[in-house]
């Protein structure tokens, strides 16, 4: 038998019995009157009025000469109890797909599980003019039955109280569907969000209403410290419904709130790790491709101005380097160039900026600046623009450091004027490095259109995927265009370093690495 009935769609309005009616006057008086009506019929506490209308499809045809004449009988059933008849519709004549006119108004009570049972009967012709209430069901043809429980979709809202008295919501749980004994997923709170562990909190228990006007079922007032005690005692705390008892008192409800889990942990900040001995290691890679322009000409991005004015590359090195070097203990930085031909050599996509064949490090920001200037004299700008080799080299350094038990986090700064020639090659290198203690900051200088580069920065798009089907474990790239920054509100440093703490903390926390506070 098909059956359908409307409940929420058919108009569910919360009437009376909800928390503090705002405003006085006629509205308050009307509520009092409705309250009294329900109370006189034994309905206390929080409730909602629901109207059920009925229709059915594809009923079985029992009559020989005509179709069935169906009627619905509604029963309520308390848990494990026998069903009690509460309602009958009228008889619809001659239909296997009837819609009944009579509607059943039911009062939905939160605290009681209400199961409804529907029986459909085919009413014999001789009873068609009889009042439905008088029809004896055992003389009719039973067509079928269905049952359901009135839905209960609870969720909690936790609010902090402030001086003005109105609670400010801090967080809420998910909505559980059709659950009279709800267990929500854990929620995470920062003690700072609520003030202190002893700050009074209001925990409100709502029933979700698709109209947006959720019904307040009850509440509990506890601080975090109280909740911790509740958890360890294993006891439940009764909800109360404010102002629903007589004389403006709170009515204590039968429902209880239990705290299944309570744990407190310290979440370290980026600075905590740095103070605790974790080092940031700065590395830099500079684009020497021909698109930068001939370094001897003033319009080149690599032009070394005799007046001392820093070009875009130098500015980026100084601004970013000065911040990061503060956290780098030995101030020795690996520095590379790419996209150029060192003297008498083939194009290299990762050559040591200091010109050495053996080691890649330079001393301090000054060291980078000096190596950069002399490299400009000793290489021929070429192409194409490939990041893969410098990223892989930086990744190798990071993983060797891991293998040696180091607590270092590496930051590679790539300064480039152009769009990468082989985007997939770059993605492959980034994906391979995405599970290492490494962040890659890319600054775009000059006037190129860097739209494609933004793909590498996962917050502007999807997670990066390598050509072998591996997906980046985390977003380790931050891309910033120098041109967009200049004259803007934030500096290059702020734009680039904005994500660094998050990338760093994601790495540390996922592995449960804690700062080692050095005892001096």
């Amino acid at each position, binding site marked *: 038998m098909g059956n359908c009935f409307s409940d929420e769609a058919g108009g569910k309005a919360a009437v009376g019995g909800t928390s503090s009616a705002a405003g006085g006057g006629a509205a308050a008086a009307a509520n009092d009157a409705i309250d009294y009506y329900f109370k006189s019929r034994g309905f206390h506490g929080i409730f909602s009025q629901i109207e059920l209308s009925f229709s059915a499809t594809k009923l079985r045809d029992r009559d020989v000469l005509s179709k069935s004449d169906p009627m619905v009988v509604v029963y309520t059933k308390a848990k494990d109890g026998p069903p009690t008849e509460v309602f009958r519709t009228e008889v619809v004549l001659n239909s296997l797909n009837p819609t009944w006119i009579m509607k059943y108004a039911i009062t939905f009570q939160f605290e009681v599980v209400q199961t409804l049972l529907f029986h459909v009967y085919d009413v014999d012709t001789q009873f068609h003019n009889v009042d439905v209430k008088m029809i004896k069901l055992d003389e009719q043809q039973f067509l079928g039955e269905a049952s359901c429980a009135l839905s209960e979709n609870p969720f909690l809202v936790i609010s902090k109280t402030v001086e003005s008295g109105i609670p400010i919501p801090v967080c809420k749980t998910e909505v559980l569907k059709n659950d009279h004994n709800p267990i929500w997923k854990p929620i995470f709170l920062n003690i700072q969000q609520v003030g202190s562990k002893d700050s009074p909190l209001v925990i409100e228990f709502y029933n979700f209403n698709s109209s947006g006007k959720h019904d307040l079922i009850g509440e509990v007032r506890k601080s975090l410290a109280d909740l911790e005690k509740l958890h360890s005692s294993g006891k439940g705390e009764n909800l109360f419904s404010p102002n629903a008892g007589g004389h403006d008192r709170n009515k204590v409800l039968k429902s209880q709130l239990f705290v299944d889990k309570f744990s407190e942990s310290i979440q370290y900040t980026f600075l905590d790790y740095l103070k605790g001995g974790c080092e940031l290691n700065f590395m830099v890679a500079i684009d020497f491709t021909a698109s930068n322009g001939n370094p001897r000409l003033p319009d080149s991005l690599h032009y070394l101005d005799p007046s001392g004015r820093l070009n875009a590359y130098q500015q980026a090195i100084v601004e970013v380097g000065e911040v990061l070097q503060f956290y780098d203990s030995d101030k020795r930085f690996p520095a590379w160039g790419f996209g150029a031909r060192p003297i008498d050599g083939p194009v290299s996509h990762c050559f040591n900026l200091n010109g050495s064949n053996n080691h890649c490090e330079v001393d301090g920001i000054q060291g980078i600046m000096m190596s950069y200037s002399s490299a400009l004299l000793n290489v021929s700008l070429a192409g194409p623009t490939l990041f893969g080799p410098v990223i892989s080299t930086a990744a*190798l350094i990071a*993983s*060797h450091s*891991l*293998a*040696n*038990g180091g607590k270092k986090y590496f930051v590679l700064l790539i300064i480039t004027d152009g769009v990468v020639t082989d985007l997939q090659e770059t993605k492959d290198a980034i994906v391979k490095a995405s*599970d290492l203690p490494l962040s890659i900051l890319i600054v775009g200088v000059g006037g190129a259109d860097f739209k494609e580069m933004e793909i590498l920065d996962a917050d502007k798009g999807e*997670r990066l*995927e390598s050509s*072998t*089907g*591996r*997906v*980046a*474990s*985390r977003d380790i790239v931050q891309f910033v265009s120098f041109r967009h920054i200049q004259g803007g509100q934030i500096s290059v440093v702020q734009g680039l370093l904005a994500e660094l703490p998050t990338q760093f903390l994601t790495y540390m926390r*996922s*592995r449960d690495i804690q700062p080692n506070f050095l005892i001096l």
Partner: protein
Amino acid sequence: MGSTSRTLEITVLSCEDLRIGRKWVKKNTYVMVRTDPLNYRATKMDTEGGAYPSWNQRLSIEMPLHERFITLEVHCKTASGDKTIGTARMPATDFMGGYLPENYLNFLSYRLRDAKGERNGIVNVSVKANLPEYLSSNDNDKKVSEINACSMTSKPAPAIPIEDGKNFGFVTGIPIWSKNHV
């Protein structure tokens, strides 16, 4: 003689954006981790996450040293039966060998593809390869200074018999140094 396999601790974390046909998966998904058709482990069923299920379930599986891939299969129990809705292959080199230290906790993610080869979401796992028993040391702070070196043990290792019935036809010999060895 030595161990012919390693124990992997694979924690199946979650999946993203799973579909059957064009529609998002509603529920009842689980993941099977396989080294070969006969050696596999499976997670419990996720009933609530829909197209974004999560399990956070650790599975231990033996991986023979010659195996080059672990297969991750995402299954969905639908009304018409158990369907494999996405597969990914995890190369052993992603979590073993290379420059990473032994016992490194790798967080890895892979693109899932369905039976037709179409993209179908992402699977997220973490993998830790445990050292073969005889290479583990009492010293927790040991450092691995070379890429494929084995660690220094402080006492001679016990002999490990080759497991019956699992003779793969070749032996991996890994030399052991002891502290007393010059």
